[in-house]
């Protein structure tokens, strides 16, 4: 499926009374390795499909089809509102990363990765074992052409790794689950993942629920990125501006002065880095929050006007079946130079949470955040006792304005796009036992 084929389709549609049209095609191949309680499955997926958004004054339709570009004998009638497509916009030059060409991981190497994790957790935590592992390593190419003259191509490469392990002791069994993503499977570090699972399982088994009011916590990147992901209504689309206004205090700040948040669709080394977004609009870095003051949300090409903010290439399309949707690509809370030990030392009494038992939830009506966490009660910088079965709660304002310290070790986790955060010290939150 070449760009020229997509352009020809768009031109043909114009002749058939559908002057506004965008054709998108994607081809990909991936290898998925699955290990469940000793049984091994290998899958080789070759995906190919294309999608069309087309219409005119009388409305539009969306058509997605698997396989090569073979249009149907007739198109559906356009309906609803007219379609709008981005014009040709020129962005900064884009240099594709060199590692997109790397071959997919082989069967042997992939299962060896899983076995390394299993050995690590079994050795470090007798009674623990891996029960499921799924590794998917894939590469894809997408192309786009629209009636406004936009023509674009991009390539991507992603490896995703899911691990589930159990730990049994004294008649009790707990489950731990981790999910991670890298550009290539070869970048996955099995021993580090094994250590994470060991900490997860042992804390989950040995921990006790704890309650605390108005407490101080250090949140590891895994926890903080889940919170940032739950706050997506604050980061995406023009409607986020009203929400930000509601949350901004009299001093003009949404968050504490050390809070700087940005999104960058072409972040160097980023898993989802690309020169253009899902509609062919050039990507770039957009500052969302600066020194705790809300700058703007991510705004697609037709939403950046007046004092709303600047538009950017910020729509993502996970696959050819999907319509483009505003979403972060690499949402980053900027780190500082402060080391984690010094952050821990400053914590006289409080908690350190390093994992989540489920993702954070934002109650849209009360604007309160809640997240079930795993970690330790801390005293004078030392771990006192493990904690599980507790929810960290507070208003959005309490979370964002209570940030007193930000460390330097930036780590990314997959969510809607990739989300990166360093460890963060926050005061004034509550710990509840559900």
């Amino acid at each position: 499926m070449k760009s020229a084929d997509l352009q020809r389709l768009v031109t043909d549609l114009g002749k058939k009374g559908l002057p506004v049209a965008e054709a998108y095609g994607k081809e990909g191949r991936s290898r998925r390795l699955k290990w469940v309680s000793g049984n091994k499955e290998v899958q080789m997926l070759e995906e190919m499909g294309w999608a069309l958004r087309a219409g005119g004054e009388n409305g539009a339709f969306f058509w997605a089809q698997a396989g090569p570009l073979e249009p149907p004998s007739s198109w559906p009638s356009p309906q609803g509102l007219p379609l709008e497509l981005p014009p040709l916009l020129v962005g900064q030059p884009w240099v594709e990363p060199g590692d997109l060409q790397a071959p997919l991981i082989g069967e042997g190497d992939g299962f060896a990765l899983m076995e390394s994790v299993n050995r690590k957790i079994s050795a470090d935590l007798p009674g623990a074992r891996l029960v499921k592992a799924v590794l998917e390593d894939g590469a894809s190419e997408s192309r786009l052409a629209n009636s406004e003259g936009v023509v674009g191509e991009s390539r991507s490469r992603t490896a995703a790794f899911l691990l589930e392990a159990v730990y049994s002791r004294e008649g009790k069994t707990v489950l731990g689950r981790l999910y991670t993503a890298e550009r290539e499977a070869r970048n996955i570090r099995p021993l580090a993942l094994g250590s994470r699972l060991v900490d997860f399982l042992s804390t989950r088994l040995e921990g006790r629920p704890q309650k605390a009011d108005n407490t101080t916590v250090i949140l590891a990147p895994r926890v903080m990125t889940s919170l940032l992901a739950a706050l997506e209504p604050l980061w995406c689309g023009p409607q986020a501006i009203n929400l930000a206004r509601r949350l901004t205090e009299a001093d003009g700040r949404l968050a504490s002065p050390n809070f700087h948040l940005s999104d960058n669709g072409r972040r160097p080394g980023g898993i989802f880095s690309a020169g253009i977004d899902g509609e062919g609009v050039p990507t770039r870095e957009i500052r969302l929050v600066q020194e705790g003051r809300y700058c703007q949300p991510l705004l697609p090409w037709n939403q950046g006007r007046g004092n709303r903010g600047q538009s950017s290439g910020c729509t993502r399309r996970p696959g050819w079946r999907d319509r483009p949707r505003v979403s972060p690509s690499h949402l980053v809370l900027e780190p500082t130079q402060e080391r984690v030990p010094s952050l821990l030392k400053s914590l006289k009494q409080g908690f350190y949470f390093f994992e989540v038992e489920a993702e954070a939830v934002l109650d849209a009506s009360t604007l309160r955040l809640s997240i079930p966490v795993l970690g330790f009660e801390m005293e004078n910088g030392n771990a006192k006792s493990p904690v599980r079965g507790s929810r960290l709660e507070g208003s959005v304002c309490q979370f964002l304005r209570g940030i007193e310290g930000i460390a330097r070790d930036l780590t990314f986790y997959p969510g809607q796009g990739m989300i990166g955060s360093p460890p963060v010290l926050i005061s004034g939150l509550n710990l509840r036992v559900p």
Partner: protein
Amino acid sequence: MPFSVLDFATVSRALSRLKEREDESIDAYFEVVDEVEQLPEEDRPSRRHRVERGFSVRLRREGRSWMASADEVTGQRFEHALRQVARVHPRSSLAVPGLRIGDLPEENLEPMEKFPTLLARAIRVHHVAFPYELRVRRHRRALQAVSEQLKSPAQMEAWYSLEWQMPWGCGGTLEVDLTREVAANVAKSMVAFFNHREAASPQSGSRRLVLGPKAAAVFLHEAVAHALEADVLAAGGRPEAAIGLPLGWEGLNVIDDPQNAPQAVAREVDDEGSPTRRRWLLRKGVVEQPLADTGWTRGSTLLEAGAGRRSDRHVPVIPRCHHLELLPGEADEADLLSLAEGGLWFNEVSWGRLDPWTGKFQLSFPWGRKIEGGRLAGAIGPCRLRGTVAELLEKILALESESHPSGAGWCAKEAQRLPVWANTPSLTLRDVEIQS
């Protein structure tokens, strides 16, 4: 059917050429999928179509399986997929020249186009008005399994999915037809949701409950059907070890019968081509036959295949129920309510969840009603039912004397979303933990 042009003999011959030993198996799966979605007009575009044709091949050898899948049905792609799973170059040719499958026939989308108007009228009958967004989808799926020895009957499923979103929550249902009756039932659900939107949640504690047919269907789907899938059972040991174990109240008879589903979605064979059966998951509260696919029945004399399902060609088959039946009891509605006097009644469910490792189970209700004087009384707000599967199934006191088709919905397991259907009576439970 799109598979009338498929050259089964050539496909089977190509598959058989890969087989090296008797204990190996190799099969192919072809599918055609068609989905039309109608969205609110403000969504651009508000009409979406998706058409897919593709296949997968699977080889199982010495405890491992290899699968290759593609989005184009041609001889060249098929041969390439066979070589991918074989991983060596067989001496004989794997060519399947001229391989193709057809399209699903064109369909009249008028029921789907008219449904929003039917629903709006049905809501007005209740003399209320509220904002909502409605998504209507038409789903069609045709599939054909072929092995080196067998060509099973092609299968076709067609259904609608409805999703509504209101400022106070959301809901949905699956239906095989979009009739006035369906519109009336959906309107009733939405109006109740609107009327009870400010109801206070009940106090946490132990209560007696009556679950209406919809809620009972979700309860059984999570607590019984998922718990008795062979891969879920395997998490705690051999799946066969569950056979003969008492799991619940002796009046509990739970069956998965894909052939007894509504005609438009009834299944003669599963997604591997294995014949489906009237499978007694629980007979008088005792586990009789877990849900299994051929991956779990190989090497087992006790498990039976026929419950293998997959959401599409790019994912493996896993055990899942299709059409769950709870055989009715002897109680009428008045009996069920009087047994739960002072308790709570629920019929709508937001979600259900089972932790296979601990057996812990949760069901979330958006609203319900109190039971006072043997009748449904004031509304109550959101709350959750919590417990373990074993405890909850022992707490069933009575079943309604009539079953109702209800509780059809999407089941997501391992990121595979599939429609599931049910036919259940209402039931009463004692001493269930309700959390506000």
